[in-house]
């Protein structure tokens, strides 16, 4: 059972890692960035090419991918979302879906849709103790997601940029009036969120050793669910949601209901939302009239 | 004159803050009453309590109906509205993307209910009712000389017109009591004067009771028959405009020397 808990945490950390980026973008422009999962895919592919073509090490690939994805995120925001700054949110959502389709199919078109093996830039080592087994890469992912969560929380709570992000998220107009550059702030958020996705792409590529252009679809949706479950827009919420989903999936499968794994996740999501309409950590603010 | 609305020992706590505490007040038939008090005194909160937007911490609100006094606590806002309490909002809350006429028609829904399946098939009765409601709505708009704006989007109208529409919309629910939260905010003296006249007129023509919150004393002192003064959530004073104007406690807390 302890082993299953480890499995759940390790799966959850992957969801959490992706959910963090989701939640950041959502937090600032209230956009369900459907393309987030696909930026993660791009990160994995970029890491793949860096390692295969330039034979860089894991850490270099990780950082280069983060930078690459940050740029991609900013460019996507600039071209596809910024022109719609004053449009209804659902319109931007559709655009995001369009971007997601474009990335998935564009990559399929250019690089074929069949999966490819990720170069083993880091030797997998397994540690066995107390009857459980855990690999160095699992630990890496788990630690990274927790560190990033703390880091992000610090950025948002402590830095000037974080302050600007909070202001823009609640009232962009008023944010301008206190001298915040709204566009820069949003770009920064996309860069940060996308860099996280890039990191996730490389780490998860390495972990599973398989990447393909559609790899972002399912985890993207799961990460979105995780972000909502924890309270969308909240950094700790995203992490918590990710872990909860990872563990729920593990428990359901361990209990022998593997065919109903996703149904159970959604059922728990709905139940939690009915009890806490703004997610586990979200607080419901009744509008004052 | 019988009591129409009776508020007893009403209290609302937000965390440690008693926004409204132990308030007792009553509204009678056909009265025009004002509620004043410093910023943050709890006036809007009191409105929210009476119209069901906010559940009270303690105390009761009851309304006289055909079946005698009925307690409103715990009832949903739409139910309370249906029973005859209508309101406007401090920060205008119109149905922005709908026409002025639709704004008014929507308020008539609760008094002119429609069967769900009936609304799918257009019976002759449907057209008859629609025509009647439309006429009623236009008549209401006419009171405020807004019939020409009937097809304008609510959000495209100047501020003052929006405030007036909010009042019409509330009237369209055929209320027994109308609550107005700062109806003159953002209006200049001239517009305020016009509003004063209209409020008085509708109160008389519709035979309803009006309770209004307002910081503009030119309006309050002109229309109110009685005034309640709230401070720190508690009732500070009650009386006629004359009495209130000369009440030292009210002057110190609220009016200042200027009036």
């Amino acid at each position, binding site marked *: 059972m302890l082993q299953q808990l480890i499995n759940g945490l390790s799966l959850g950390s992957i969801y959490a890692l992706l959910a963090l980026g989701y939640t950041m973008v959502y937090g600032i422009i209230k956009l369900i960035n459907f393309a987030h999962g696909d930026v993660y895919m791009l990160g994995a592919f970029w890491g793949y090419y860096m390692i295969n073509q330039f034979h860089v090490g894991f850490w270099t690939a990780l950082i280069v991918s983060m930078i690459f994805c940050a740029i991609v995120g900013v460019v996507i925001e600039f071209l596809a979302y910024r022109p719609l700054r004053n*449009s209804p949110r659902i319109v931007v959502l559709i*655009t995001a879906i369009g971007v997601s389709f474009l990335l998935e199919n564009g990559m399929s078109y250019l690089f074929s849709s069949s999966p490819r093996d990720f170069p083993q830039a880091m030797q997998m080592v397994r540690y066995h103790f107390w009857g459980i087994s855990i690999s160095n890469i699992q630990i890496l992912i788990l630690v990274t997601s927790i560190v990033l969560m703390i880091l992000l929380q610090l950025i948002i709570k402590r830095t000037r940029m974080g302050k600007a992000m909070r202001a823009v998220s609640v009232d962009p107009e008023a944010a301008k009036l206190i001298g915040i550059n709204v566009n820069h702030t949003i770009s920064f958020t996309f860069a940060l969120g996308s860099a996280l996705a890039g990191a996730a792409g490389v780490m998860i590529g390495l972990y599973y050793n398989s990447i393909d252009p559609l790899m972002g679809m399912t985890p993207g949706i799961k990460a979105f669910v995780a972000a909502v479950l924890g309270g969308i827009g909240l950094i700790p919420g995203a992490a918590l949601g990710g872990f909860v989903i990872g563990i729920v999936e593990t428990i359901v499968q361990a209990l022998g209901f593997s065919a109903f794994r996703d149904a159970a996740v959604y059922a728990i999501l*709905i139940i939690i939302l009915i009890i806490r309409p703004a997610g586990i950590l979200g607080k419901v603010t009744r509008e004052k009239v | 004159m019988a009591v129409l609305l009776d508020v007893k020992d009403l209290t609302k706590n937000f965390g440690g803050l008693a926004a409204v505490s132990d308030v007792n007040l009553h509204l009678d038939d056909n009265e025009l009453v004002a509620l004043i008090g410093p910023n943050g005194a709890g006036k809007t909160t009191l409105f929210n309590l009476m119209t069901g937007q906010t559940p009270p911490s303690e105390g009761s609100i009851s309304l006289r109906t055909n079946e005698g006094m009925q307690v409103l606590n715990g009832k949903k806002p*739409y139910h309370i509205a249906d029973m005859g309490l209508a*309101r406007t909002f401090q920060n205008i809350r119109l149905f922005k993307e709908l026409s002025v006429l639709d704004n008014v028609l929507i308020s008539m*829904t609760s008094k002119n209910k*429609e069967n769900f399946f009936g609304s*799918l098939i257009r019976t002759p009765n449907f057209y008859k009712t629609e025509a009647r409601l439309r006429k009623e709505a236009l008549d209401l708009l006419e009171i405020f000389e807004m019939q020409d704006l009937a097809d304008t989007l609510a959000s495209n109208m100047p501020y003052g017109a929006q405030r007036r529409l909010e009042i019409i919309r509330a009237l369209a629910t055929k209320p027994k009591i109308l609550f107005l939260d700062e109806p003159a905010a953002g209006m200049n003296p001239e517009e305020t004067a016009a509003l004063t006249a209209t409020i008085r007129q509708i109160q008389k023509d519709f035979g309803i009771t009006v309770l209004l919150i307002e910081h503009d004393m030119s309006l309050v002192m002109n229309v109110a028959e009685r005034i309640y003064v709230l401070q720190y959530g508690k009732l500070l004073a009650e009386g006629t405009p004359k009495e209130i104007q000369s009440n030292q406690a009210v002057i110190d807390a609220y009016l200042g020397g200027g009036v």
Partner: protein
Amino acid sequence: MKKNLKFNAIWLLIAIAGWILINVLEGVGIIDQFAENTLVLIGINIILATGLNLIIGFSGQFSLGHAGFMALGAYAAALVTQAIPTPGGFVIGMVAGMILAGVVALIIGMPTLRLKGDYLAIATMGAAEIIRIIIVNLKITNGPAGLYGLPQLANWSLVYVLVVVTTIFTVNFIHSRNGRAVMSVREDEIAAESMGINTTKFKVAAFVFGGMTAAIGGALHASYIQTIAPNDFGIMQSINILIIVVMGGIGSITGTFAAAILLGILDMVMQSFGALRMVLYSLALILIMIFRPKGLFGTWEFSVKRLFNRKKKAKEGA
């Protein structure tokens, strides 16, 4: 009163004329089987999107689970027509699907419609996925393989009639007192409640109505394609319907028609673009949204009455 009758008659005439026109075109061979196929798929999408537009565009509730209700309609119709392979059987199946979808919408809607915006979206998406997963795991639905070899009882005429009927019902609903109440929920829930409108009731009503129309679309889909599988009703299907609604203009039934037709034709033309197909489609989607963010028609509606009045005005002016 007479005037109303006249407008209704004009609408009816337009509908009948459309039907005759298409039949004639089919007779002379301008509309071949492939075009008819396209028309049917467009028609089904119109039904699906109209219902979703009622939920999203008019009641302002963000539902991302339309495919779930579509699935209920499809499976109900498929199972019933397998047992009773007659037009009557199809009607029974479709109605059963509608009732099932209505009841499920009620069960899902009651608790979840309290949620706001994206929370509701994800809850409805989850609910639809649960429906799908249950279908995957049921014996009677034949698991992931789905049901196939269904009798083709839906033809193009039936689809046309049902498009007309659902549109009329939807439009009538929107322009009734209930419909206005639904719209007030979208505009400002707090204000609506204060005007005596039971917002929960109207939200659920729109949701149930939308769910039932989705079931009609699903039933037609099952019976026309003759094959259904759980994967036909996944998240992507919900998204595809959503795209029609938004592209047409949230809150415009005319727009829904236009977008369904445009996307339907695009879908057919793009079949020949091979692997580039979805690349071009997604580019088109992004560009349309950027250049027409209000949708093809915004909230504009085609109206016989207005057309008529304008003519009259022009005449008076002359």
